[in-house]
Every structure is written in structure tokens, then in C-alpha cells.
């Protein structure tokens, strides 16, 4: 195995492969940054470009794109409260408040280092788990998927910024919305009102653009300040260095979130949109001292970013071992592999192991490059926050609507984004956080499908007789009870002290 790794490394570093990786990183960071565009579009764009290239160069470039997207998306999440891709949604919760406090550099630095280290971690775990990966993938069947979706949705209770009841209502609303479209498992068309557009359900990307980018742009413009709310902006460079170190200060949280991300990556079908919420929820629950979540707690940036990039490493497991893509991006990557004559699957490990090592190197390298490029560019972007909102606001709106349009080339997406933008604005205004809505919308489909599938295969007891499924259920239950107990205890303390409620 030693020789193979060395061989792969030398292939990898042979010029001009690194050049292609850098180009992939640039494109990936850009596409990650722009709302509506993401890894899928970048990869689809580059696939024909790779026709004439050698295999290593092609892989390098494509994986380079994949690695850079999560960090690119965090830049817009932090600076503009606009997640560049759905998997950066959770990064806005604390990233943007930090920007508002003038600490954008701090947040960006933390995102960069946790993204990079998360990717490295994911790869290390990947290499360790590769032999075990098969077992993990096979152990996850319908009940387990259901429990994962349930766990993701229960994060709502933890993260309900506002009253629990309103959070619940938003979640139920989101679940209802996730029922829209053609459901393969029941074979029926629901809530499409006769349109073709809703056949595949409510698309996450434009809905997210509306709920996060547009509605927050509206809020900003009504409040009327600049993004930093008049706070003094601290020196960007020193902020960044502080941010980079912050990961090490919260090392164990980082490790745990990377594990969450890697595991989610290994399970095909559960994507980045889930991992970042789960990681965020986990961070909220496990912090003991001085939590500032929702108001600029740096841990709220580290957690989701680490899990996002770790998931990319994990996602290579089903992709390479089974040839089963775990997401749209890996599906396109697979297609590109096949076009270049590689057949991912059980055979690949035996016939062509150097390819896997090249993928791994490319992932690490691309994250390093993405961090450097991103931070360098972000330094200029961070100056943006000094601009008056009258300029930024419309720019965000323009970027959002064009991004929604470009996402799949459909004008209906623009309409959807606007509708959700208005909806999101009013929801926030009247105390209903849109976070539960998003989580429910993303996970609702999987929840319903796997519910029916479990009933069809093992019946209702399937949820509780299988070890992993039962374990996840208990974990979820505990997750839900803990904040309840905490709140009760806090309320009791307050009563004892005779103080007002918080």
C-alpha cells in the first residue's frame, strides 16, 4: 500500500494537475458563494471541459470544486446572512450576528480552519473506515433512515428561537410543505394544484434563498443600518487569526461535529443540508459555559462547517465502494469517472486503488487552497459590510433572484423564492422562526418515505427491534428531554431567586 500512496502522490503533484485543482477551487468557491449555484452546477459545467484531460487532472479539478464549495458558501452566509448553498444555512445563525458585531474576520477565519480541518478529519476517518464502510452502509435501512430524519427534525426543539410552540407550528408547516409533489412510495401526486413545476415538490434551493437571503435583505433594508449595525469593525486580519485559532480552543466540539458529518456522508441519501443542522443542534446542546447561540457564538460557526466538509470525505465511501452516489454532486462526479473509463464500485478498490488516493489528496489540497483563496478574497468582501445597506440590500436581492433563476434555469424558481421570501419575512416578524420550517422541508420527504417503507418491509416493530434504529430513537428522545429539563430547572432557579424571567 505504501508504494501506491507514493505513486498516487507523485501523479498528483505532477504539473499541470495542481493547476487544474486550483482552477477547480476558484470555481468551487465562487459557485459556493453565490446563492442558487453550487457544486452541482459547477461540476456539470466542468464535465465537458475534462474530456480532453487526463484522468488525474480531471479528478483533481472536479474534486477541487467539491472541496471548495462548503467554505465558499460560508462566506456569503457569514457576511450577507445568505447561505451560498443549503448546507451553509446553519452557519448564518451565528456567523451573521458576528458580522453585525463587526467581527466578520473572526467568523471567516473560524470557518476556514474548521472547514479545512473538518475535511482532513473526514478523510482520515474515511481511510480508517474504508474496510468498515461496507458494513455501515449496509446496516442503514429504512428504520435507521427514518430515525436519522427524526433526529434531524427534533433539532427543531433545540434550536427554536422563539416560543417552542411556534417552533413546532413552523415545523409542522414545513412537514406539510414537504408532502408536495409526486411521492414514489405511495405513487400519488399531492398538493400540486395541476402544475408541472410542483411535481418534484418544493425545491430547497429557491425556498432557502427566499427564507434566508430575501427575507433577511428585507429586514436589513427596513432597519436601515449598514450590515455591521453601526458597530465598529475590528481589524480583519487579527480577527481572522483569532478565528483560525478558535477551532483549537474548541477542539472536542470540532471533533464531534466532524464525526457527525463523516457518518452522515457515509450514509447515502442524507446530505449536507442535514449535517449542518444536526451539528449545530449538537453544539447548542453540549455547550455548558456561556452559550451565545444565535447572537454570535463562534461555536455556531465551527460546528456546521466542520461537519459539512467532513461529510465530503465520508461521501466518498459509498461512492467509491458501491458506486452509489450519496448526493447530486457525487452523482455527477461518478458520471465523470465513468466518462473517463473508471468504474467505481467494488472492483475499483482492487483494480485501481491509486485513483482513490488521488481523490483523497485532491480533497485535502482543495480545502487548503479554498481556505487561502477564500480568506484572501474575503478580506475584501469583509469591507463590504461598511457599505450602506441601501447598496447591499438590493445587491443581495438581485443576486438572490438571479441565483434562483440560474439554479435550474427555471423562472418558476424565482417566483418560489419571492413567495418564500415574503413568507419568511412575516414569519420572523411574528415570532415564527424559519429554521424549523427549513429543517422540516429538507427532511420531511425522507421522513415520510422511510416511514412507509419500514411499514412495508418490517412493519411497525421494525423501528424498535433493530439495534441501530432503537439506539437512534433513544438518542433523539434524550436530545428532546434535555432542553426541557434544563428550561424547567432554570425557571425553577429564577422562581427561587425571585427574579424576572429571562
Amino acid at each position, binding site marked *: 500500500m505504501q508504494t501506491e500512496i507514493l505513486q498516487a502522490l507523485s501523479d498528483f503533484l505532477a504539473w499541470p494537475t495542481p493547476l487544474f485543482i486550483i482552477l477547480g477551487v476558484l470555481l468551487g468557491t465562487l459557485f459556493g458563494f453565490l446563492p442558487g449555484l453550487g457544486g452541482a452546477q459547477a461540476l456539470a459545467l*466542468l464535465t465537458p471541459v475534462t474530456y480532453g484531460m487526463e484522468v488525474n487532472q480531471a479528478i483533481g479539478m472536479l474534486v477541487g470544486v467539491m472541496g471548495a464549495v462548503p467554505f465558499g458558501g460560508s462566506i456569503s452566509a457569514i457576511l450577507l446572512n445568505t447561505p451560498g448553498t443549503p448546507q451553509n444555512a446553519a452557519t448564518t445563525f451565528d456567523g451573521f450576528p458576528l458580522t453585525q458585531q463587526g467581527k466578520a474576520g473572526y467568523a471567516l477565519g473560524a470557518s476556514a480552519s474548521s472547514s479545512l480541518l473538518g475535511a482532513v478529519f473526514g478523510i482520515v476517518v474515511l481511510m480508517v473506515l474504508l474496510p468498515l464502510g461496507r458494513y455501515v452502509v449496509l446496516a442503514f435501512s429504512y428504520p435507521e433512515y427514518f430515525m436519522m430524519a427524526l433526529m434531524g427534525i427534533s433539532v427543531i426543539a433545540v434550536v427554536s428561537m422563539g416560543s417552542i410552540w411556534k417552533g413546532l407550528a413552523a415545523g409542522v408547516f414545513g412537514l406539510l410543505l414537504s408532502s408536495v409533489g409526486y411521492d*414514489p412510495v405511495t*405513487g400519488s401526486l399531492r398538493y400540486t394544484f395541476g402544475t408541472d413545476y410542483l411535481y418534484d415538490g418544493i425545491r430547497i434551493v429557491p425556498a432557502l434563498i427566499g427564507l434566508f437571503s430575501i427575507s433577511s435583505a428585507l429586514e436589513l433594508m427596513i432597519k436601515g443600518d449598514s450590515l455591521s449595525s453601526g458597530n465598529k469593525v475590528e481589524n480583519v486580519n487579527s480577527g481572522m487569526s483569532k478565528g483560525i485559532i478558535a477551532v483549537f480552543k474548541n477542539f472536542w466540539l470540532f471533533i464531534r461535529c466532524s464525526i457527525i458529518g463523516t457518518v452522515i456522508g457515509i450514509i447515502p441519501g442524507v446530505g449536507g443540508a442535514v449535517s449542518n443542522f444536526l451539528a449545530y443542534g449538537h453544539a447548542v446542546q453540549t455547550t455548558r459555559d456561556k452559550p451565545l447561540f444565535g447572537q454570535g457564538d463562534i461555536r455556531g460557526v465551527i460546528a456546521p462547517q466542520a461537519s459539512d466538509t467532513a461529510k465530503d470525505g465520508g461521501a466518498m465511501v459509498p461512492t467509491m465502494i458501491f*458506486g452509489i*452516489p450519496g448526493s447530486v454532486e457525487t452523482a455527477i462526479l461518478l458520471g465523470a469517472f465513468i466518462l473517463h473509463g473508471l468504474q467505481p464500485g*467494488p472492483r475499483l478498490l482492487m483494480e485501481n486503488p491509486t485513483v482513490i488516493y488521488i481523490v483523497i489528496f485532491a480533497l485535502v489540497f482543495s480545502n487548503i487552497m479554498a481556505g487561502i483563496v477564500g480568506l484572501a478574497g474575503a478580506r475584501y468582501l469583509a469591507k463590504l459590510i461598511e457599505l450602506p445597506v441601501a447598496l447591499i440590500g438590493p445587491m443581495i436581492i438581485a443576486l438572490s433572484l438571479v441565483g434562483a433563476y440560474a439554479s*435550474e434555469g427555471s423562472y418558476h424558481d424565482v417566483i418560489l423564492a419571492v413567495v418564500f421570501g415574503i413568507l419568511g419575512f412575516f414569519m420572523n416578524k411574528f415570532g415564527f422562526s424559519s429554521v424549523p420550517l427549513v429543517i422540516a422541508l429538507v427532511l420531511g420527504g425522507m421522513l415520510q418515505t422511510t416511514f412507509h*417503507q419500514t411499514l412495508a418491509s418490517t412493519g411497525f416493530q421494525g423501528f424498535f427491534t433493530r439495534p441501530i434504529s432503537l439506539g437512534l430513537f433513544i438518542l433523539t428522545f434524550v436530545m428532546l428531554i434535555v432542553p426541557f429539563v434544563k428550561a424547567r430547572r432554570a425557571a425553577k432557579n429564577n422562581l427561587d431567586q425571585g427574579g424576572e424571567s429571562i
Partner: protein
Amino acid sequence: MFFKVRITKRLSLICMILLLGIFVLTGCGQGQEETSSKQETGDKQSSSNFPEKDITYIIPVSPGGSFDTFSRILAPFLQKNLPNNPNVIIKNVPGGSWSVGVSEINRAKPDGYTIGIFNNGNVVQQLTGADYDLTKMTWIGRLHESVYVGALSSKSKFKSFEDMKKAGKVKAGIVGLTSTDGLGALVTLNEAGIEPSFIKHEGSAEAAMSGVRGDVDYVQLPFQTINKFIESGDLIPVVVFSPERLAAYPDTPTIKELGYEGLLDIVKLSALVGGPPGMPEDVTKILREAFEKSLADPEFIEKMEKAAGTTVLTGSHEVAADIMSKSLSTFTKFKDLILANQK
């Protein structure tokens, strides 16, 4: 004010440099320079100089699947073999189980500048209300036909098709009852007198995995989807839906040998290339000839075989038209069977 102007200037400059670089690279990779060499295409009557600009090739699914891959293999060969070597630009139009993309092809101007790929399962949408008529499309040819393989999970208690028949009941994993694999499985099991209980999935990869995990006994999927699992030993092939035994599975009987030859026409997945209805004769002829030339190119065959994992079954436009109309009548015939199973 001046300060801010300078910042935005710097920003735009950086962006532009970055993008110009990427623009150049992508521009170089995407389309070759259009050579001005005009090739004679034999005895074409009209004086049209088709094609004079780029041709759009629509794929009604997201990038990454086998139809997408096969099309992307075909595209550069079409480019090479068409007169004037136009760019053949791939456009993915996913949505509505192929119906959005197929609609787009249907609505395009029938001037030969828009073509796309179809599959024989598209008739389902036509039967359930889509606004196109697949039998009226201008067919160019068959790109590939996937042989279906029926396989048992290695974890299943059944070891052969006979075992299933003896038991009379089986759990099967499919995509959906209105997809080609689902209908194929339904009809096959029905013919053999086996009562199926189905678990439906979002896609064929998920359906295959259900067999690998042992959640179901039986899956019936196209060769390229299922082959890797057979090679790894997770799935055991028990029947192949082709007239002759497959070289890959010499010990597996064909459906003909098992006595259900009629199913050969029904259980298949064809990738058909065509354009909107009403395309003019001369244009269609040029496209068909270019298609045939591409199919005969040894480099094309090699690439396709590697991607498909097996011999490539191409065909002319008559074959394509025939497949589509047969598919329509099959699905119509079994509509009631589908509804009955859709509780």
C-alpha cells in the same frame, strides 16, 4: 464616498480576473472551433446547409446517471460526424420524471437544432396526461438498450427462480409501479404466478441497495445498475431478459429458457435519440446518418462498452419507433394491473 468607490473597484477587478480565467478555460473545453470544412452528405436534395449553428441535445434527467453518461459519450461523435462540425451542447432538464425535458423537446422548433434522449418508459407520462405523443417524434435511432437482470439477494432464502415460484410469494424492491423496472417486475412475477409485495424507492440505485441489504428478496434492474453488486456477490442473478445468455453470467438462464419469451419485448430499458415531431426529411436524414456513423466508430463502441459494462445494442430509427409504439401498447394493456397493485 471615494473610499467606497475604490473598494468596489478592487472587488470587481478581482472577480473579473478570476472569471476571465475560468471563462477562457471553459470556453476552450466546451466547443471546438467550428471548422469551415463542409462535407458532402451524399445525395441530399435540398440546398440547405444544415447544420449552420449549435445543436442542443436535451437530457431530461439530472447529470450523473447512465442516460446522461451515454449521451455525453455520444455528443462529441455526433459533432465529428455532422457536416460543418457544429457544437452539440448538452442541456439537462430534469423534473417530473422525464416529462419536463420531454415536453421541452416536443415543443422545440422542428428544425433539427434541438434533439434529445428518451426512454421507453416515458409512455407512462403520456398515458397520464402529458401533452406529447411519443409515437410522433422524429426518431433518430437507438443509442443503447439495457438488458434487465432479475436477481435474488444473497441474504434471501430463495436461491433460484424456481424457489420463488414454489413459494408463490416474494418481496421485491422496485423504483415504482410506473417505472420500467417496476412494471417489468410486476408483469414478470404475475406471469410466473408469484404474488409480489413491493417496496418502492426513489431510484434504481436505492432499489438495488434494498436487495443488497436483504430488505427484499428480488430485484429486477438494468445490467449496468446491478452488475457491480453481482460481481461483489451481494446479488445472485437468476434470470436475464435477453434472447441469448449473457457472457457475463454464463450460468444464468434467459427468460426464454424459463418459458416466458413474450416478456422479452416488455422488460427492457431503451435509450432512444430523437427530435420533435415534424422535422423536415433532409435534416432528419443528415442527423440519422451522423448518428449511424457515430455508432460504427470503434472508439465510440469502446467507450460505450466500458461505460455500460456490456455489449452495446444500438439500432436505427425504425427500431426506435417500433420500440416506442410497442411500449405504449404494453403500458396501456397493463394499466389496470398497475392500478390494482397500487393500494
